[in-house]
């Protein structure tokens, strides 16, 4: 009485639908506030991206003479966006699939049932795709809709947009899944190193590509020949066989209303849509076919590839951190080292930080090449402010995703820490110091890189550095403090803790704090520069005004650090386990 594959597919689909329905009901019944907070936060991000994109497209449309490679800029932007989002999908799908296929208890459970290996793989892969494509939807859809609205494109663009989106998700998602399967099967002991090497390769490759593109973009756009040469240099993203380019061409032709065929015998939007879907589905079939042969084999290899008891020793990184924290008392230092070890031994955690930081560093390192020669200082002024905001956003994600769950994760082992001869609040200070140290290192380095590349004056650099320092410290205090006030000791998955009510509230408060601090500490200088048309701070009043707003910002940072930590320490003292 075995269930045929089609039946199993339906069975897993029903399982997924039931889980989603029950989750939705539980959310509505138990914490409607949480649901509203999640939706509000998503809508805020979506609207923010939409407004920025709308302004950008309006500017491009209004001032084509300032835009490098004028006619091709929209296609170029789309190519960039789809390549970046596609890369994000490849990595996030591979990482999510690795843990859900090979280390989750659900995988152990399902593999002991008569479920077929390819069906389990397919169920997990589609789940991972759905999960990782949220970012794609949240960031990609407002950009494309803004383009459609600004350029007044054909209805076909809006009608086909969802189909292009869903079709495109398949290809990079399957590529990530395939990479995950192959790595586990053929290099199970070197997976971590290979993932790191692949990440570095992508960063270096992207840097080289951006450098070439930027070098071409700086040419004078008047000459048609030069423009063609520029577009030709972007061959990596614009090749006829590159799926991201099918998306760009498909959406552009849909925008022009060419469904079946374009002018001069070119292909219409439906042709590109068919290309995206047929290749995506073919790749999906290939991946599931391989999974039927490789999934259980890989599972076995990963489970038994190493030694029974892997020996972990002291690492140089630990010793370096310990030396760096020499000024702290030994107990706090030990607590920080414990958290650092836990963090660095979980590649799913640090890989995300590494990828985001790497992408930002890549962007900051190349921004000057892309824009400075063509765009005046006013644009440079706003870009540097935007980069501070982006770095702050990275800090928000870092503290919300990794720092907020840390105290909840101590729940099941609190009998160890709770019985140690140390004050409970020292746990908080340890986590705060760990978070603030990491946040400071990342954010200060990124902002310095951005400002130096943009050639910003020293006062702006100082203000930006001070802003991100306040953000790193304040967001650490918020996340650690709120994490202690609203712990979720039953949950062992940090991503679920971060996505819970407390985690969502922490993210929303963190975003609000980010806006306040940047608004007080960086925006006044940029506003003054925009109004006076130069970087010189004119007048003693303006200078003292900047000083006052910066001091208020530092005060807000101190309050955001001290108050949540104090409340968290109080909650921790009264807590029973």
């Amino acid at each position, binding site marked *: *009485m*075995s*269930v045929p594959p089609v*039946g*199993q597919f339906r*069975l897993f689909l*029903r*399982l997924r639908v*039931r*889980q989603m329905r*029950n*989750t939705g009901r*539980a959310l509505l019944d138990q914490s409607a506030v949480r649901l509203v907070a999640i939706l509000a936060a998503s809508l805020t991000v979506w609207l923010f991206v939409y407004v920025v994109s709308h302004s950008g497209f309006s500017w491009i449309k209004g001032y084509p003479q300032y835009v490098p490679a004028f006619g091709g800029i929209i296609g170029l932007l789309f190519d960039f966006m789809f390549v970046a989002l596609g890369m994000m999908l490849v990595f996030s799908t591979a990482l999510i699939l690795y843990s859900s296929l090979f280390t989750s*208890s*659900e995988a*152990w*459970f399902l*593999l*002991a*049932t*008569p*479920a*077929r290996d390819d069906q389990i793989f397919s169920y997990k892969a589609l789940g991972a795709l759905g999960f990782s494509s949220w970012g794609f939807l949240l960031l990609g859809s407002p950009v494309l809709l803004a383009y459609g609205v600004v350029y007044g494109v054909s209805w076909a663009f809006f009608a086909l947009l969802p189909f292009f989106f869903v079709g495109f998700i398949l290809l990079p998602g399957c590529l990530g899944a395939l990479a995950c399967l192959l790595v586990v099967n053929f290099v199970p002991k070197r997976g971590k190193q290979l993932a790191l090497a692949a990440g570095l390769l992508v960063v270096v490759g992207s840097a080289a590509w951006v450098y070439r593109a930027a070098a071409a973009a700086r040419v004078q756009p008047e000459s048609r020949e030069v423009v063609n040469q520029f577009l030709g240099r972007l061959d990596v993203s614009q090749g006829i066989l590159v799926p991201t380019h099918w998306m760009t061409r498909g959406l552009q032709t849909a925008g022009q209303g060419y469904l079946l065929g374009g002018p001069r015998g070119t292909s219409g939007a439906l042709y590109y849509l068919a290309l995206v879907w047929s290749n995506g589905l073919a790749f999906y079939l290939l991946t599931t076919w391989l999974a039927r042969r490789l999934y*259980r*084999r890989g*599972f*076995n290899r990963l*489970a*038994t*590839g*190493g*030694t*029974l*008891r892997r020996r972990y020793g002291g690492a140089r990184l630990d010793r370096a951190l310990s030396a760096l924290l020499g000024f702290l008392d030994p107990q706090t230092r030990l607590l920080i080292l414990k958290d650092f070890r836990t963090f660095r031994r979980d590649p799913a955690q640090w890989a995300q930080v590494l990828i985001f930081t790497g992408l930002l560093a890549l962007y900051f390192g190349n921004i000057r090449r892309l824009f400075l020669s063509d765009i005046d200082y006013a644009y440079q002024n706003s870009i540097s402010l935007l980069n501070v905001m982006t770095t702050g956003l990275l800090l928000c994600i870092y503290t919300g995703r990794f720092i907020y769950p840390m105290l909840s994760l101590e729940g099941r082992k609190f009998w160890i820490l709770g019985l140690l001869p140390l004050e409970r609040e020292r746990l908080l200070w340890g986590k705060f110091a760990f978070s603030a140290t990491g946040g400071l290192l990342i954010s200060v380095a990124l902002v310095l890189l951005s400002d130096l590349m943009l050639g910003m004056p020293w006062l702006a650099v100082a203000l930006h550095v001070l802003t991100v320092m306040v953000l790193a410290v304040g967001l650490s205090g918020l996340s650690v403090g709120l994490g202690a006030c609203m712990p979720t000791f039953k949950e062992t998955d940090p991503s679920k803790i971060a996505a819970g009510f407390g985690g969502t509230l922490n993210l929303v408060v963190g975003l609000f704090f980010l806006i306040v601090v940047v608004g007080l500490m960086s925006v006044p200088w940029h506003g003054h520069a925009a109004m006076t048309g130069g970087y010189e701070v004119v007048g003693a009043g303006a200078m003292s005004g900047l000083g006052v707003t910066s001091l208020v910002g530092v005060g807000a940072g101190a309050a955001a650090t001290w108050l949540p930590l104090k409340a968290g320490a109080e909650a921790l003292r009264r807590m029973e386990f």
Partner: protein
Amino acid sequence: MIELDRVTKTYGNKTAVRDLSLRLEPGELFAFLGPNGAGKTTTIKMICGLLFPTTGSVRVGGFDVRREGGKARQLLSYVPDQPYLYEKLTGREFLQFIADMYGLSAPYAAARLAEVVELFRLEDFVDDLTERYSHGMRQRTVFAAALLHDPRVLVVDEPTVGLDPRSVRLLKDILRRLSEAGTTVFLSTHSLDVAQELAQRIGIVDHGRLIGCGTLDSLRLQADLSGSLEEVFLRLTEEEAPASAL
């Protein structure tokens, strides 16, 4: 019903199971004992097809677990020491998922579902989300799911941990009845009293090697003792330790 033929399993350069041969007949209740890290769970995972033997073969119901894993797993149920439940499903939805996965017809599944719900006294909570279940409730639900499709082989890892005395009694009665009805039960446990009370044969594994296998009386003979299973177990594993250290 379960055949392990000269099975060896290595993890890198460590050997977890060494040249293990074992044959279990239909309806046999077999207890598998051993100190921590002896290779019990690895053996169980190989029987269930979760891990493959490095050398040797494992067959369940005549099917090679590696080559015909789907058919072998159709015959067996596995209850791990830390069972998995979908947190966002109710107990009833989970049981229905298992019934569908094993291809039970709708009327038969409904009848069996009602039977196991009653047998394991799940009525009070079977329609709640499993995320609210206590350990005992989870364990009973998992056992109900394992028996839903009338498996011919039941593999159980540490079933009594965390259960109250009444639930332990219930579980022991059910395992005994299953065995009498022809189901082969492979029971891995540290509870020597449970093994002594239920098992027809007992296997003792240490450092990956089967150091004793037979009825309690034959093990007593081997250990040259007339005491309880606990004394026999301690003697045999004590003798094994220095030998394996050589």
